Structure formats: C-alpha cells, structure tokens
C-alpha cells in the first residue's frame, strides 16, 4: 500500500490539535532532544535526510540551512519564515497540515530556528485561511502557555517567539521574496535574486524560508534519524509527500504517499486513492504539480511520484497538486482560465509578464470564440516564447510554459477551433462559460470608461 502516514501519523485516530494528545504520541520530544544538541548536528541530520522543499522549487532544505550564516558570522539577527501562503491552484495540503497537526509545524519551526540560530520566526499564512489561522493561533497559545514557545524555551536558556502573520489575498506573496516584502509591510512584489533570502532576507537580515510541509517534516526527520528518513522513498526523492488530488476524480483529497513507490495512474485509479474518474469517463490529461506545471496527457501517467520521473515525463512535481481532467474539458478553455489567473495575479513589475499574460488571455479568448486566424495561434506561441526567461520571478515563465504545453499536447484541438471557427464542444465543455475574477475586474474598468451618450 503506497499510503504512508508520516506527517499525518495518528491524526486519524486522535485529535492532535490538542497539546496533550500530541505529546501522548511523542510530540515535542524531538525539540527537547534538539535543545540538548549542537545546532550543527541538527543541520547535518536534515541534510542527510535529503528532504527537498515541498513549496515547489524542490531545493534541499539542509543545503539552504547551510547557506544561512551562523550567528557568529553575522551581526544581524537571523529569522526563520514559514511559507503558509498556499495559493497555487490545485494545492490544499498545507491547510490540512495546519488544521490537523499544528503542533508538528510549531515543533518543526522551533527545531529549525534553533538549528540556524533564529530567535524570531514568522508564519505567513494566506488571509483566506481563517480556519487554519484559528487552529494555529490556539495551538500557539497553548504551546506558549506551556513554555514551549517564547522566552527561555523549556528552561534551555534559548528563546524563540513565533509571530502568526496573515496575508490578504495575493498569489504572488507565495513567492518567497514577495512574501518578505509583504511581511515588511509593503506591496508584495518579488525582489531580484541574488541576494538570496538566506543572506539578505527579512529586514535585509539572513532568513530561511520554508514551506509548511517541509518544516513539519523536521521533527519526523529527527525522530527517525536523517539516514532512515532518506531510506524512505527513492534516490533524489526522499520521504513522503501529501499529494493533493482534485478535479474529475471519484475520491479527491490529500494522500500522503511514500515518494517514488506509486505512479500517477495509481494515484488516480487505485480504489484506495483516487478511485478513478466519475461515471467511467475517459481521462484526458493531468496536471501534476499545481497550475504552474506543464500538462501530461493520458498516455503519460505511468510516471512514478518522484521529482525525476515527473521531470522526465516533461513536467514538474511542483507543489504536488494533481488536477485530473476528463474528456469533457476543452483545452483552449483550460488555457484561457489559467491565463486569466496569471493575469489577475501578475504583480506587474516586469513588462513581459504584465503584457504577455494579457496577450495570452486575449488570443485564447479569440481562439475559443472561433474568431482567431491561423496566424494568431503562432502569435500565441510567440508570446509564450517572449515571456520565457525574461521575467524576474517564475510566475511569468509558468504562464508561458503551461499554455505552450497545452498547445503542444493538444494541437489538433486548438487547430479545430480555427478550422471550425467555433469551439468543438459547443458550450458543453466542463469549463464552458466560467467567470473569472479578472472578467469582473475588466467589466468594472469598462463601465468606468464608458461615457454615457446623449
């Protein structure tokens, strides 16, 4: 059985949001152990575990920790920041972790902060997540009242406060440097890298930024030992991940799986996992890592659930947001809806992204409506080309890459829109007529611009 609860261990049979329950299953024991060890030793364990960041970029956490200067090498304070902005379409795993095992995240924050020498940590949680915010707030309060967080943690002489900071609705604030600007009280726009946050992050001080799931794995890594954790999964893809399954599938939800031990097909069709496509419909495509990763066609789902295999199949594991798409979906509409998302969320700092995504939306709309000429399909790919590699942050690239992947994999369907001068689905696609936030925004702007006649 590929399901392997590690982060969500015991979460089914007990209420781990309660400190006493969490401790009953060994909670905070790793923090106690860590506080008696040298910070370097903890970093070594994390490095040995091989864990790669779960937020999307897949950078090894242990290596990132080593980039942060040790307290004796810097005059500035060191900060630890948890990225809980989770806004990537198709992902909802961090929310489940915060809702069900908040203390595991808090313990991970404390251990990680101790390892890098931080005395102040932040959790940047997306503003819409009120339920997860309340759960975390209560867990933090309980942990503080028991001396686990704040001054003189567990009598060790080491202090660490955790500030819970709520975002206010901006996808781009998930990008780590935009997140830091937002946390500094600014508009959340990405910064040029280098300098990387590990050297110059929050308030221009050394800062480690990690995803919720990455941080929540830390106590488990210490409990098992780095080498034993590395033995779970396969080479280059160690440990478990919560795979988010959504769209046209019988049993959507999060499944914590050992990496590399099952295929995308199993995730979708295994009766204990996705359970197949409703009403026996045919699979058309799957997006494996959330909206920002290229699409895979139905014939490409034998890839195993690990970074290398999914890359070899032509996509990315990303944030493990698997969006299952059945035969009823028009691929032009899919491109249009995601391009609209990127248009809505582009921060506007660089021209190729700001202008390019608007062009993508306009051309895709014309193709969908049957108004586009042959040359416009080429123009669409040309626009994608001109965005790629020309942007400050990966948002623009993602928009270009995914749209290009839809055209590459479903070229005939795009062509039919041109040839028929209409959508072949004739209004019957599962995405027909969907209203996007950017549509409303544009309608407002048009209304304001329209001068009443007479």
């Amino acid at each position, binding site marked *: 059985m590929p399901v392997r609860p590690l982060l969500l261990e015991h979460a089914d049979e007990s209420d781990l949001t309660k400190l006493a329950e969490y401790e009953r299953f060994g909670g905070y024991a790793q923090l106690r152990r860590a506080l008696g060890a040298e910070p370097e030793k903890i970093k070594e364990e994390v490095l040995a575990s091989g864990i790669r960041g779960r937020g999307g970029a897949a950078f090894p956490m242990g290596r990132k920790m080593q980039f942060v200067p040790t307290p004796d090498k810097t005059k500035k*304070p060191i900060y630890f920041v948890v990225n809980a902005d*989770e*806004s990537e*379409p*198709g*992902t*909802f795993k961090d*929310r489940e972790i915060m809702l069900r095992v908040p203390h595991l995240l808090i313990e991970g924050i404390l251990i990680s902060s101790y390892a890098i020498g931080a005395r102040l940590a932040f959790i940047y949680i*997306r*503003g*819409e997540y*009120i*339920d997860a915010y309340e759960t975390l707030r209560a867990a933090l309060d309980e942990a503080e009242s028991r001396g686990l967080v704040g001054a003189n943690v567990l009598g060790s002489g080491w202090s660490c*406060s955790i*500030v819970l*900071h*709520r*975002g*206010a*609705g*901006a*996808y781009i604030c998930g990008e780590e440097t935009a997140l830091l600007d*937002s*946390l*500094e*009280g*600014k*508009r*959340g726009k990405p910064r040029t890298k280098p300098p990387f946050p590990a050297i110059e992050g929050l*308030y221009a001080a050394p800062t480690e930024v990690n995803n919720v799931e990455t941080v929540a794995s830390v106590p488990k890594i210490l409990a098992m030992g780095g080498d034993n954790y590395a033995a779970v999964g396969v080479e280059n893809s160690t440990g478990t991940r919560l795979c*988010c*399954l*959504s*769209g*046209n599938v019988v049993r*959507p*939800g*999060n499944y914590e799986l050992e990496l590399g031990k099952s295929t995308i097909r199993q995730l979708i069709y295994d009766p204990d996992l996705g359970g197949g496509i409703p009403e026996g419909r045919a699979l058309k495509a799957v997006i494996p890592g959330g*909206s920002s990763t290229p699409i895979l066609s139905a014939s490409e789902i034998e890839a195993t659930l690990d970074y290398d295999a999914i890359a070899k199949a032509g996509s990315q594991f990303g944030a493990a*947001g698997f*969006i299952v*798409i*059945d035969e009823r*979906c028009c691929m032009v509409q*899919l491109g249009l*809806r995601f391009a609209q*998302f990127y248009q809505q*969320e582009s*921060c506007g700092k660089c021209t190729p992204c700001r202008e390019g995504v608007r062009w993508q939306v306009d051309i895709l709309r014309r193709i969908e409506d049957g108004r586009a000429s042959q040359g416009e399909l080429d123009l669409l790919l040309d626009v994608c080309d001109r965005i790629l590699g020309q942007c400050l942050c990966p948002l623009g690239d993602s928009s270009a890459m995914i749209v290009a992947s839809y055209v590459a994999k479903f070229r005939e369907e795009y062509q039919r829109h041109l040839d028929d001068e209409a959508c072949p689905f004739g209004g019957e696609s*599962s*995405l027909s*007529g*969907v*209203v*996007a*936030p950017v*549509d*409303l925004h544009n*309608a*407002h702007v048009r209304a304001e611009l329209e001068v009443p006649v007479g």
Partner: protein
Amino acid sequence: MTDLYDAIQEIASQYPVRRSAVMPALRLAQDRYGWLPPVAFREVAEALDLTPAYCKGVASFYDMFHLAPIGKHLVEVCTNVSCALVGAQQTLEMFEQELGIRAGETTPNGEVTLGVLECAGGCGWGPVVSVDHRYHEPVKPEDVPEIVEGLRAG
C-alpha cells in the same frame, strides 16, 4: 487615543520594524468600517507613523482589502479550474438566480455582495464557496437556496 490606535500599537510591538504591522492594522480598520474609507488610512497611518497614501498603496495590492463599500455579507465562489471542473459555474449561477444579481454586484438593499475567487485552497472539496470568509465545501447548486436563506435571516 482610540481603541483602534491602541490595538494597532499592540500588534506593532510584535515586529522588529513597526511598518510590518500595516496589513494587520488595515484588517482591524476594515473590520471596524466594513471597508477602507479615507479615514481608515489616516488612522492606520497615524498609528504606524506612515502616510495615508502609503497605506492605501499597500491596501490596493491585496484582494481582501476593500477600497469601496461592499454588502453586509460577502459570498465568493471559487471558479478556478479544480472547482470549475466539478461545477463551480453552475453554483455561481444558482447564487445569481437566488440573489437576483450578477457576479460582481451587490443586492439593491445592500445586504449581499456576490463575487468570484481564485483558488481558495480547498480544491479537493470543490466547489468552494466563501461566505463571510468562512468556507463551505462543497457547495452544489442545490445547496445554494439554504445558504441564501441563512443570509437573509442573519
């Protein structure tokens, strides 16, 4: 000084740099006024030693801050792909029908504003609808009348 001023000071004390408190402060102000009128920016600016224009500039970047009044209740339907694949548009249309307004509008009595959201982070339980910032998951068209009824009652 006002209690808003004091509440903002308390939040600001958590941060090494007080400007970091601008978002939580704007949220407090919005909770008080229902949206962010000019006076809110003056109050937040004064409490944090910023300017009103700076605070407005920050607020305008984020979707959850309202620069114009909205209805007493806010209903937002996620129409990103995972939710749309399982019928979010039908759910949205049912809200339009029950409320008698289009997405992006507020009922004439000022009670309910209907909007659409990008991915709410509940894709596995879609269609996700946020009612006064609380998620309802999933909301099928047939669930809509009861939600609207509840809003009319409250």
